[in-house]
């Protein structure tokens, strides 16, 4: 790890100010991507702005038809929250499948979603539920948020503060973990909502995406059979030591069927 300036601002405004004033600033939430990258000297920010001192960024609120989850809420808190477990149990389950106990107790939802790791679990839940990403200056629809591998609609210095999850009629997340890293090789989140079925897939492609084919099929008939014969384009899939594109494309359908089965 190279030397850097450490800051612990007490407010969002102060954090933004520090970021703006830094040569190469970075926000620190749970640190589970940032700190290993810094230790490996792959990241070398001049200024690390620790968000832990800012009040009000953590916690889960049940607001009518929406669950609001603060950016600094740890995965474990979401996984074990009785509110999340009763209102959107699939989201609690998704959080319980992230990493290991240590990761779940430090890693945060805001950090994970801002990072837009193609194999992270949360993006599937955010996109699948059609959540709203709230920042220090605006609100962004999930459909517009994840733009590419490790890229989001967040502007330079823009800070994710909370995520608003509309409560679905029902939802399920099924994950095929990478055997080594336990990230998602493929993770499929399916939500039945008032405006139709949403299918979001993480791990498979450079960024989380919705399968419109699967959504159309399930909107026609919500059954496992409806997904029969739907094969995603392997040409759009990731390929690595652990799973080829073809296998990933196959797993997308299998995991989607399993998610549907959980909802029947």
């Amino acid at each position, binding site marked *: *790890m190279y030397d850097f300036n450490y800051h612990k601002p007490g407010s969002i405004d102060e954090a933004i100010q520090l970021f703006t004033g830094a040569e190469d600033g970075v926000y620190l939430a749970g640190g589970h991507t940032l700190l290993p990258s810094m230790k490996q000297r792959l990241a070398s920010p001049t200024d690390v702005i620790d968000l832990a001192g800012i009040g009000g960024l953590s916690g889960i609120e049940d607001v009518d038809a929406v669950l609001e989850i603060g950016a600094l809420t740890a995965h474990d808190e979401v996984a074990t929250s009785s509110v999340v477990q009763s209102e959107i149990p699939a989201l609690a389950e998704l959080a319980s499948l992230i990493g290991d106990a240590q990761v779940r107790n430090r890693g945060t939802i805001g950090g994970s979603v801002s990072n837009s790791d193609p194999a992270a679990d949360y993006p599937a839940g955010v996109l699948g539920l059609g959540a709203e990403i709230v920042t220090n200056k605006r609100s962004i629809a999930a459909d517009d948020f994840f733009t590419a591998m490790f890229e989001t609609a967040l502007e330079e210095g823009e800070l994710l503060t909370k995520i608003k999850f509309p409560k679905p009629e029902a939802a399920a997340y099924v994950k095929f973990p990478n*055997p080594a*890293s336990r990230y998602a090789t493929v993770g499929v989140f399916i939500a039945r909502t008032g405006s139709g079925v949403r299918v979001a897939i993480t791990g498979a492609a450079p960024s989380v995406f919705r399968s419109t084919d699967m959504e159309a099929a399930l909107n026609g008939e919500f059954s496992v059979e409806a997904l029969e014969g739907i094969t995603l384009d392997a040409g759009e899939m990731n390929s690595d030591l*652990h799973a080829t594109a073809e296998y990933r494309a196959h797993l997308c359908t299998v995991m989607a069927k399993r998610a549907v089965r959980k909802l029947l």
Partner: protein
Amino acid sequence: MVEQSIGKSVLRKEDQRFITGKGRYTGDIDLRGQTYGYFVRSPYAHAVVGEIDTSEAESMSGVVAVLTGKQVAEDELGGLPCGWMIHSKDGGEMKQPLHPVMAATKVNYVGEPVALVVAESFDEAKNAAEHVSVDYEELPAVVSTAAAQSAPDIYTEAPGNTCYQWELGEKEATDAAIEGAAHVTRYTLTNNRLIPNALEPRAAIADFNTGTEELTLYTTSQNPHLARLILTAFVQIAPEHKLRIIAPDVGGGFGSKIFVYSEETALAWASMKLGVAIKWTAERSESFLADAHGRDHVSDAELAMDEEGNFLALRVKTTANMGAYLSTFASAVPTYLYGTLLAGQYKTPNIYVEVDSVFTNTAPVDAYRGAGRPEATFLLERIVDLAAKELGIDPAELRRKNMIQPADFPYQTPVALEYDIGDYEASLNKAMEMADYAGFAGRKADSEANGKLRGIGLSCYIEACGLAPSALAGALGAGVGLWESGEVRVNPTGSVTVMTGTHSHGQGHETTFAQLVASRFGISVDDVEVVHGDTGKMDFGLGTYGSRSLSVGGSALSVAADKVVEKGRKIAAHLLEGDVDNIDFEDGEFRLKESNRSKTFQEIAFAAYVPHDYPIEELEPGLAEKAFYDPVNFTYPAGTHICEVEIDPETGVTEITKFTAVDDFGTIINPMIVDGQVHGGVAQGIGQAMLEQCVYDESGQLQTGSFMDYCMPRADDLPKFTVGMTTTVCTHNPVGAKGCGEAGAIGSPPAVINAITDAVGVRDISMPATPEKIWRAVQEVRS
């Protein structure tokens, strides 16, 4: 004392300190004024090293010195030797290109050290290392084991990148038997390359005392005396009597810490050159790059049988990857630890094996838990299974039919070894019973009803352990003897300090050896302290590997303990005013026969050290005895492993529903520790079979350089193990033990692959059998 005697599961004495954080590992040791070393490593698999500019790094904050491979060459340091000479079938010696302490003119694998930065802190050393400028001229890399012999030469002295072409067995007889056989099963296989990943990375501190000219090297070694011998006699770092090597608590080795590596050697040299203590601890990414890797064979095998399935001959051609240099014992692994094991548990009359060892631009490959024996067992137990399928015979029955029977011992195999004892069918029967082999068909039907595939696989393994009779090892090319030393030092109050030349880095010797000695003397294990891992404390020793510690090191202690008892009887005879022939020793008491007179072990110890009433003219005072034990044969642990799996055909995800291991380790001192060894070994074997794979890309870059990509087995990947024992006592060592450290890793991989291929209904799935490979195999079968 019964609860602590041999055969009892005494809790491990060492665990109090390990589980409360009181262990003392190399990383826990800090010396006054110590500096820190960081290595500049080659980013290329194969490149000419040009100018190395250290000036910028040397000017940086805290930097003490930057030393390069070129300075190593100028100081005429010897290369790191390989301790086992293998002769090719044409009689020529193996090719042993210089393995420099740090590369001076050419680098041959990614991660090879080229310079050492010494600084006042770790961060300063690491920062400065980034500013050492090395001119590299990249060369094409040789990576593939199978294609190495047709690739450009890495070394001019090793044409065709071939280190040696070794053979064992009768070629003509084997060829003839295969030619005329009713049935021949053929199998081409790869034994996947593994990275050891001990929990504690390698570490060292070299401390040269300019006043006494003594060099102390703390290092994570499985065999500190051997390290001292190599550093003295071959590398010529320091004279043997001025070099002390301390291997304190060491967190796992699995073979990877047997070897003498560049890093600790460079540190020792640099400490003497600079007159400062230097500490280095490998970062995990350095461990991946620069610890010796394991396995990496490609083989063709043919098993010939008559109409009834009686084995007639086995012919094997193997190419073994040595990596870029010959590591300390690398040459022995695919030869005398591999070819000699190809008889397995069977009466195959003709066996011929050829092994070509090749150099590649990858990290050196050397012994890793099992070392050669897992490779032999995998090949044999896979081809036997394939033969059973081809002949339509139950795999268990084909094995049983060909097994060496108890009446056949001692049994001379066609590949040099003479097995002393065993009862292979007993292990097979017990394992089949524990695994409910008979009930498999019902379970398979249940699985099928749930849309799952179910398979069962056996592996009947044997291994040669207890390395080794020195004369035999020497005749086969070993550069060292392989006896072991032990000292039993009875203190005046009757407590005992035991010195052993073996080294415990997770095996629990401090408990097992204490039980061995305590039960002999009838004292508590708490009154026995086992000391190991310091060349300054004990006589020469050969260390721990090859499941040798109890069978060889324990035997040395057993002999030494006998000498203590003998001397005790003489002292007792004097004190009890009887004849020494009439003194019995039992349950901690020396008794004069046909009398009520006796002396306790403690009373005798005290008398030996306070010899006021003592036969001083005939007997020296004191009560401490040494023994050097050289075994007359290897030991031959054997057993049967049975794996049962259930596969989800939609994904290829495989669950091991039951794993049964029945082993014959001879006499067992501590069953709990032995079970633990089996569990750990089987976990590693399942790791090899299903999860672990070291991958280099075509340019020789390591693709699996972290735990994000190198898949280590975790608890939730593994079943609850079903472990059982059968016992035939080793005939030739006083403990009767055969060794248990490697069996799990040796026996399990073929059982797993046999089970998976059985479930899917395919001939072969290569290791690691990942979900994708299994899914593809299922697709193939279904199309």
